[in-house]
């Protein structure tokens, strides 16, 4: 009998285990440059190629810490429900989640950790180890419950294309892309440079994911110097849609979707309430500036409803505009175990968001839409 899906969580974060990279990369070749946990000033931190990762946290897992505040400083205190397949499945069961999409933690919550200026060979090996780690420890263990996404070595488009092919063979069902490539000294989306990657993704039917904030670090009117961690976290999360909305506007107006009409883009941890803004603003500018004369044949909102997906986890106002966004374009997530996560209270939050929403529409959002995106 086919596995029956009840709820599919399209954004959770998998904490990588301490040996995720050390057991898969050549010590002889890379020495201490391999991502690993080291002791520093009385706490443990992840290091890669001489750089501290994840802002010095050993794990980002506020959502499973009772006060949502006191993060562990040592690996031994990181709850295993964030890094073992069994532990995660227990956590999923508690929230009624049948399957979940895994995004990284140490490898960059938006897939950016290895995209900084780095030796392209080292980048390739780090990314490959991450992708194989996910495949071996999660996909191979419970393929119907874990949906894995690959990172790609973006330093060259050739390497990215090659890794995407490897990832597709290894069971990955999509990949992460950074949102503001210019910040990484890479060509912009509006340029043709990325076309081989888009073409391969379209051919392999691998959706492109922008996870909030897709590595767009500098684009943030952040807290004042000296602000508390909690306030900074709140500000960062609240501001993130200002970035997501620009990523999608840049895609819709930059012509990528026009040139690759079967390519799918997913905004993870995107929120949905801001989407009407992007669609109305892009349609308005498309019409006012006559962009249909410049190669953008389809109206931006039509393109969005044919090729893009967005997700939510706590909203109500956005859900009321679902017919305008497109009920078929909306997914649901928990963001387990991040600071903003609704775990373990998915029932409560779904009740709030789905007030007045017919059953069949709920089913589309929780099951049918993600099944279509990930071909489950």
């Amino acid at each position, binding site marked *: 009998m086919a596995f029956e899906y009840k709820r599919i969580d399209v954004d959770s974060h998998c904490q990588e285990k301490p040996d995720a990279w050390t057991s898969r990369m050549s010590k002889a070749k890379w020495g201490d440059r391999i991502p690993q946990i080291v002791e520093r000033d009385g706490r443990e931190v992840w290091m890669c190629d001489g750089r501290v990762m994840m802002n010095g946290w050993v794990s980002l897992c506020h959502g499973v810490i009772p006060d949502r505040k006191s993060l562990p400083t040592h690996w031994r205190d990181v709850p295993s429900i964030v890094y073992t397949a069994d532990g995660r499945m227990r956590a999923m069961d508690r929230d009624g989640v049948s399957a979940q999409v895994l995004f990284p933690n140490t490898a960059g919550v938006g897939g950016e950790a290895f995209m900084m200026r780095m030796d392209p060979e080292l980048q390739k090996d780090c990314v490959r180890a991450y992708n194989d780690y996910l495949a071996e420890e999660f996909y191979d263990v419970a393929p119907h419950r874990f949906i894995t996404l690959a990172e790609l070595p973006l330093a060259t488009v050739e390497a990215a294309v090659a890794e995407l092919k490897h990832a597709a063979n290894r069971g990955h069902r999509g990949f992460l892309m950074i949102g503001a490539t210019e910040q990484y000294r890479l060509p912009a989306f509006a340029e043709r440079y990325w076309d081989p990657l888009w073409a391969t993704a379209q051919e392999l039917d691998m959706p492109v994911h922008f996870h909030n904030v897709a590595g767009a670090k500098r684009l943030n009117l952040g*807290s004042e110097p000296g602000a508390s961690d909690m306030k900074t976290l709140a*500000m960062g999360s609240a*501001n993130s849609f200002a970035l997501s909305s620009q990523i999608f506007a840049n895609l819709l107006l930059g012509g990528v979707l026009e040139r690759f009409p079967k390519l799918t883009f997913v905004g993870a941890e995107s929120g949905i*309430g801001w989407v009407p803004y992007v669609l*109305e603003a892009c349609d308005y*500018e498309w019409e006012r*500036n006559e962009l249909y004369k410049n190669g953008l044949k389809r109206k931006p909102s039509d393109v969005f409803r044919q090729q893009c997906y967005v997700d939510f986890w706590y909203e109500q106002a956005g859900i009321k505009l679902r017919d305008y966004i497109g009920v078929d374009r909306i997914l649901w997530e928990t963001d387990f175990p991040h600071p903003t996560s609704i775990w373990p209270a998915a029932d409560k939050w779904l009740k709030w968001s789905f007030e007045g929403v017919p059953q069949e529409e709920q089913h589309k959002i929780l099951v049918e839409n993600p099944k279509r995106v990930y071909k489950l």
Partner: protein
Amino acid sequence: MGLRFGVISVDDHVVEVPDLWVQGMSQAKWGDLIPHVAVQADGTERWVIEGQVKTANSLAPTGALSKDRGAEPQVWSQVPQSVHDPHARLAAMDVDGIDYSVLYPSAAGISGEAICAIKALDLQIECARVYNDWIIDVWTAASSRFVPQAILPAGSVEAAVSEAQRAVARGHKGLIMPAQPSQINPAAPHLYKPDWDPLWTAIQELDVPVCFHAGSAPSVMFEISPAYDPAGARAFDNVRQSAGSAALINGMVLSGILYRFPKLQPVFPGSAIDYVPFALEALDHQWERQHLVENEGFTERPSEIFHRQCYVTTWRERVGLRNRNYVGIDRILWESEFPRSASTYPESTRMIESNFAEVPVRDRELILCRNAARLYKLSI
């Protein structure tokens, strides 16, 4: 209601005349540091401020008046009169069905940032004054249909306070601040630091709104790739600017400024309203998830603060108006953004009819004029 059209535009731009500062300031004291227009090697004319040629900035951003909504005049002789002459402007307002127009600058920066960036503080102060006096002496003197707003020398908190007080005494009804003074002028503190409290105190006492124009926070906006053609670049620019406003709304709340100054009334012109319900839900969610009552002493929900104090603007939205009760019906203002490329001009009437087709008269009047009249104390 005595208004002819029932429409107040809360965000339009004057275009400064080339001799504005040259006429009003001492040549002997400042020489070429005075903002002026100079012919460049390629034959175009550009503003020169404190010796810096503003090559990236248009001489006169007037896209709404050009045929393709993009081409802008490269020399002053081509600049349409309606952007710099109050009498010609009144005629354009009549054509487009606008009763009152709230004024923002152009050469001084959409939020006064070109003046705030001036390094010599006394020059910065004097330039702000000259602009502010010109608005009163030329624009308001021509017609009470112009709602005057002053720019502030935001390179210094003290200077900004004095100019705010002087300008309001001279008749200004609103104050314009750049969103990131510290990025524009290294002498200025970060906007969210308590260093600015004397200004917020003064503005509260003056009982006028403080306005943060979209696009004045470059670090929250994506770069525009050179691969865009000019029309595409313009389109993306206009979309990204409003996204920047969203970050600023969040910041004014989460910085604690609006908690500490419960009568401060920030306006976010060019913000758009479509995303506001989401912004408020996101803020409330974070406030709850990060325990900001205990951790920061923020006792009210961020959405309550917004509904008590903030104003946002709409011009191109239909769907956003469906969610107007989440935004707060008394929080929404309408704008035309004349004469910039994003403007509804010269089709404001048609766009209003189309966007407000399903909005009841009471709500429509609040958004199109009553909220603005209350905020700016205008008789309607």
